């Protein structure tokens, strides 16, 4: 394998990093050129990711190692788990970019927006391909910094307040995470991510330190993953433009946190060590609490985006729950939810953006009868909502099914109860919306007739919706997310 | 070695007075003078130290004192110029 091919993670990273630099440098003056570069970079990234997918499946190793400090390397490497996150991000980046171009048409400061947007995706790529905790942290912070300008993009007092909350939560979380990383470095030196973990030799001498460090790491990442009780930034960050919300929820920020938790559990501590220390059970309980809490809070939200936000709080914890059960089947459920939740949630946020942009609707009570005016958008919203509830054969069902199987196999029957309760709660906060949009008459009789969202908004929405549908319908096929996760889990559990 | 003691006391005294003046005086000229007192104490100490060699004085502290005095003079001149500028600006403000 040649060096250039081995360094694929770097090219994927650079494709959006350079795009960000060029977009920021161009400024507001060349909108066409900017859009061209943005789309070209997104397409290029898709191609690169495609090449990598083939490579990883064929067992090729992508690894790039640059010494940074004495004893510390910057490591970029791509394994099956990275590819799961990378593919999702690359795909949804393209969709969200198209959506955002239409959404922000004629609004000010677009170059700034798209520049930081690309930077944010570059950070996501770095997080996905980070080969050790140090590298992970590097990009984790880059993500924090590049999303803040997006959250405060509107520049209103409300946006600034949300931005401040976001910063305090995430920077505080990062400080805790950094403490954990430094302590671990002091205890065990700099260790690359290795399936099964690298710390087992320390379990007899330093069990307490390992437990403490684990709590710091998970606590730090839990902020971004919006684990209760440090989820507070997420609903307030909803003042950001819809594409940002979509990005924060489906791809970048919460997923970065969840992905980090997966890395720590699988590749730093390893499942066996987690169970020995009793940490798996703890994580499972934390995740379950968040799942129920998020759903309960969602029921009382009257703003569509806020309800979706609490739904995210709840749904992302499925991922943590899945890996905490420490059982191959549950792991499949949790990891595949990383992709499935991303596809479904981005569909829902795209729809919310369409409603807001086309008819100025933000509150749930104003959605009455919108299905007659925006049938396509509403159909996609329905797909996403039913998927979230977990209706077979949609994507959400696949995740919950494997989670349930895993819980039974692991003998943790209470988790089945959590899953059932969550499903009921999901239905309680989504079904009334579906009833409103399809069966209630519009409040204002004047506003009859078809008025769909603009094609630039509707296109990505349809794409995301059908992708979510396909992920569920064709889960049994060879290249589906589920098949990929099965491959991945097989590698993790049979070292 | 009996001749050294009073001079050492004088050096320490000068430094003490200088430090005291710097801390307690508000006016810039007084502070500048305090600094000079302190500096003279240091120079006196250096001259004392030059006597430590049995065969004749050590030239190094002497060179240090000479250089130090040159620096102290120029710095004081600069300080005084600043004080004058300050007084003039304050005068301008009042009129």
């Amino acid at each position, binding site marked *: 394998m040649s060096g250039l091919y081995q360094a694929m993670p770097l090219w994927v990273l650079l494709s959006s990093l350079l795009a960000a630099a060029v977009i*920021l440098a161009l*400024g507001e003056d060349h909108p066409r050129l900017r859009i061209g570069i943005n789309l070209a970079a997104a397409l290029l990234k898709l191609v690169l990711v495609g090449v990598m997918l083939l490579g990883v499946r064929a067992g090729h190793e992508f690894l790039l190692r640059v*010494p*940074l*400090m*004495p004893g*510390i390397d*910057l490591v970029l490497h791509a394994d099956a788990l990275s590819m799961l996150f990378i593919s999702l991000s690359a795909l949804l980046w393209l969709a969200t970019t198209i959506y955002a171009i239409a959404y922000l048409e004629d609004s000010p*400061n677009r170059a*700034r927006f798209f520049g930081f947007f690309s930077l944010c995706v570059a950070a996501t790529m770095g997080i996905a391909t980070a080969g050790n905790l140090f590298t992970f*942290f*590097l990009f984790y*912070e*880059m993500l*924090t*910094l590049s999303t*803040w*300008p997006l959250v405060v*993009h509107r*520049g*209103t007092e409300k*946006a*600034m307040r949300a*931005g*401040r909350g976001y*910063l305090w939560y995430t*920077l505080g979380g990062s*400080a805790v995470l*950094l403490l954990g990383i*430094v*302590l671990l*470095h*002091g205890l065990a030196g700099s260790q690359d991510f290795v399936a099964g973990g690298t710390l087992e030799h320390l379990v007899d001498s330093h069990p307490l330190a390992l437990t403490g460090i684990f709590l710091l790491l998970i606590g730090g990442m839990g902020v971004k993953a919006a684990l209760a009780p440090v989820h507070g930034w997420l609903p307030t960050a909803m003042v950001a433009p819809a594409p940002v919300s979509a990005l924060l929820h489906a791809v970048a920020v919460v997923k970065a946190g969840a992905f980090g938790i997966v890395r720590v559990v699988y590749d730093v501590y390893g499942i066996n060590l987690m169970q020995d220390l009793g940490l798996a059970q703890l994580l499972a309980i934390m995740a379950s609490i968040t799942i129920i809490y998020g759903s309960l809070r969602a029921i009382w939200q009257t703003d569509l985006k806020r309800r979706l936000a609490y739904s995210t709080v709840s749904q992302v914890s499925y991922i943590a729950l899945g890996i905490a059960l420490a059982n191959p089947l549950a792991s499949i459920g949790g990891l595949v939810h990383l992709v499935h939740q991303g596809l479904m949630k981005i569909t829902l946020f795209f729809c919310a953006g369409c409603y807001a942009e086309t008819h100025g609707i933000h509150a749930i009570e104003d959605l009455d009868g919108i299905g007659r005016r925006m049938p396509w958008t509403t159909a996609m919203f329905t797909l996403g909502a039913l998927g979230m509830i977990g209706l077979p054969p949609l994507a959400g069902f696949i995740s919950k099914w494997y989670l349930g199987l895993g819980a039974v196999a692991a003998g943790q029957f209470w988790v089945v109860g959590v899953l059932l309760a969550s499903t009921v709660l999901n239905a309680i906060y989504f079904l009334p919306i579906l009833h409103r949009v399809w069966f209630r008459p519009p409040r204002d009789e004047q506003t009859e007739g078809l008025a769909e969202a603009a094609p630039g908004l509707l296109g990505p929405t349809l794409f995301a919706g059908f992708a979510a549908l396909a992920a569920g319908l064709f889960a049994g096929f060879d290249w589906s997310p589920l098949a990929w996760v099965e491959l991945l889990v097989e590698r993790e559990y049979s070292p | 070695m009996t001749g050294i003691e009073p001079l050492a006391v004088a050096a320490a005294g000068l*430094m003490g007075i200088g430090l005291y003046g710097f801390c307690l005086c508000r006016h*810039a000229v007084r502070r*500048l003078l305090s*600094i000079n007192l*302190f*500096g003279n104490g*240091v120079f006196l*100490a*250096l001259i004392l*130290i030059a006597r*430590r060699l049995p065969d004749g004085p*050590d030239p*190094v*502290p002497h060179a*240090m004192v000479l*250089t130090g005095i040159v*620096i*102290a003079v*120029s*710095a004081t001149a*600069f*300080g005084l110029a*600043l*004080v004058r*500028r*300050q007084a003039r*600006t304050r005068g301008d403000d009042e009129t």
Partner: protein
Amino acid sequence: MRPDVLPVMLVFLPFLAGLLQFIAGRPAPRLGNVLVGVNLLLVLALIPGVADEGAIVANLGGWSEPLAIHLLADGLALLMLLLTALLAVAVSLYAMAAWRDQHHDALRFWTLWPLLLGSLNALFLSRDLFNIYVTLELVTLAAIPLVLLAGPGKTVDAALRYLLFALLGSLIYLAGVALLYAQAGTLDLALLADALPDSTLAGSLGASLIIVGILIKAAILPFHVWLPAAHGGAPAAVSAILSALVVKAAAYLLLRLWSGPLDPLVTPAAGQLLGALGALAILFGSWQAFRQERLKLVVAYSTVAQLGYMLLFFPMAVTAAWQGAVYHGLAHGLAKGALFLAAGNILLYLGHDRLREMRGIDRPLAVSLLAFGLAGVSIMGLPPSGGFTAKWLLLTASVETGQWWWTITLLLGGLLAAAYVFRVLRLAFLQPPENVPDRPGMVPPPLMAWSATVLAVLAIVLGVVSAPLLELLGSPVGGSE
């Protein structure tokens, strides 16, 4: 060319340029810019020699001990020279654009700035206690008149206060030098450590005086009182030099003396005390920076805070802490230079730097704000940046030595820095008010905007190239492992 000519040229070329400018009588910014260019080349030419041999020594005039005057370029000195040279280029370009039309101010700047540069180079290259005193005074006397360039009468109070504290500091330092000389009979940094008897009262007193004198010059809490007004009031280019280099030079001295000649005299308790002062400076300075209403004062108080990090070496005294403290000096120098230049651009455009009245300054100042943001990343110690590398090294040192209280200080300091950096950055994103008042100033010319940005980018790049730089630096000479 023999490598030992390079340190000599580094000292004498700037002095020559400054004198030429003085004699010429009309501003010649080109001369200054050629000088800083040559200066940078000379420093770069030093790197291979220092990397191979560890240090380059030049003996001025060929005198033998004890009258010899040596110039020594080792890893630590070289890194400081490199920082100075890089900053000098950026600041000179900035100054060329800033003082284009002001004849008098330009003449003064281009006379004093080369003198200051030469003095700084000489300070970093000095290897005996008395030459350090002389160069410290030269730095002071060249730096303070630059503060006065802010305009007639504006900064006289600040400059006078600065001068008084600086003079007192260097005389206290000199008193300490006298006591140490009485003990050891030598001033040479390399010979002192062996010549000093272990822990005598006079020796400890001398060392304490030296340290206190330097602390005053480095504006370490509680001696910081002169700094904010002087650094905040000076013109942007001067503030950048003062904050990034001049106080840094004093902090550098502390590192150099502590790990060299003072090694037999220092005690762990003294180290803890200095560390505590540093921690107080970090917390107090950051808090004050957060509370300021004027942009340049925010940046000036940030300097008070950031200098505190360099003191965290003393309680820990391991290689990682040494590297972290020095690296922090480099990163802060570049970042602070960028912050002050960017703040100068904002001031130029708005005609004031009151934070409350800044809104919607995004578009015309985009490049300067980018510089401010990037430099802010390093100041906050977020990756990837030189500031983060330094913080990481200091954090590892605190874990290694088990002194957890510094770990907490470091993390807290980072959060506080984020508070004051983002308080400024958010202004760029706030919606502009309905009726935009007339802008009295002008959009900064590209040279001014980009010189700030280049510095900020360098502060970020510092986070990626630390391996060779840290290798060049090596370990502390006398530090315990």
